[in-house]
């Protein structure tokens, strides 16, 4: 394959990876947003506040632990029975 073809293939793959990771990047970016009001849809200012106490919300922490426990149980089940 020629250099040009390799370059174009690489560019096209970068586009595909870009489409896959664009929403993830938004998600990461908006975790540093300081929203006024209840919605976190517009960029309003940088803050680390959301990351200072990640386990402060008791209900969210409980849901997270339930998810972990269920995932662990499902993984063990799959390891033993494979279905």
């Amino acid at each position, binding site marked *: 394959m020629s250099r040009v073809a390799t370059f174009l293939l*690489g560019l096209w*793959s970068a*586009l595909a990876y870009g*489409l896959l990771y664009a*929403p993830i990047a938004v998600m990461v970016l*908006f975790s540093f947003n300081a929203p006024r009001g209840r919605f976190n849809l517009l960029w309003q200012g940088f803050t680390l506040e959301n990351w200072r106490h990640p386990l402060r919300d008791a209900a969210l922490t409980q849901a997270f632990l339930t998810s972990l426990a269920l995932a662990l149980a499902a993984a063990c089940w799959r390891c033993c029975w494979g279905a």
Partner: protein
Amino acid sequence: MRRATVFTVHWSNHREVLQAHGAVLGRSFRYALLATGIGLVLAYPLALVIRFRGGRWQPLLIGLVVLPSLSSYLVRAISWTSLLGDSGPVLALVHSLGLSGLLTTLGVLQDGRLLNTPASVILGLTTTLLPFLVLPLVVALQRIDTRLLEAAADLHVGPLRCFTQVVWPLSRPGLVAGLLLSLIPAAGDVVNPQFLGGPNQRMIANTIENLLLVQLQAPRAAALTLVLMALISLAVVLQLRGRSLEELPLP
């Protein structure tokens, strides 16, 4: 008064839902086909790069394709609404590049909006199903014996003919498996049309949800589900006709 569940057989439900929701059904399959087509155009070169140019980075590149699927696809759809919204970065980029006229004639932009258009729903579907297209293709391409490519080079075959006569025919099982794995979930997707589409971009799963949970018409919802299952089964049978499941590189 005691209420009992009485079952009486009505085939009329099926005829009615087909008449009432045939347009939505057609739209669902149209969106799913378009998303799969665009996905294939993105996925095939990516699979080629991973297989033939990946080198020692191959496992990492495959992992990077799968990694976004580990996050919730609900969250990813909501992230897309942020990106595609009226004051979002994608629309600003389109305007600054002067592409808005072209995209309006192509039907991507509608009334100057990207969100709540068919294009945004199809974009959301494409990105969710991209890994399911890439993985079977990579597996199918891995199965190609490199000696065949060397033999083609020995016979002074150019890269284009090498692709059309060696790589493409041998990658077709991967294409079939990818189509199967992406068309079925795309046709029944709920989240992407709900967040990225407006009322005119609802797909069949949204209609079923609405019938069951809002209009409380369980028999019609069931009939519509059965019609959808029958159509998908028909599509699967047509795709798999004359092939055995073993030859498909299903991951």
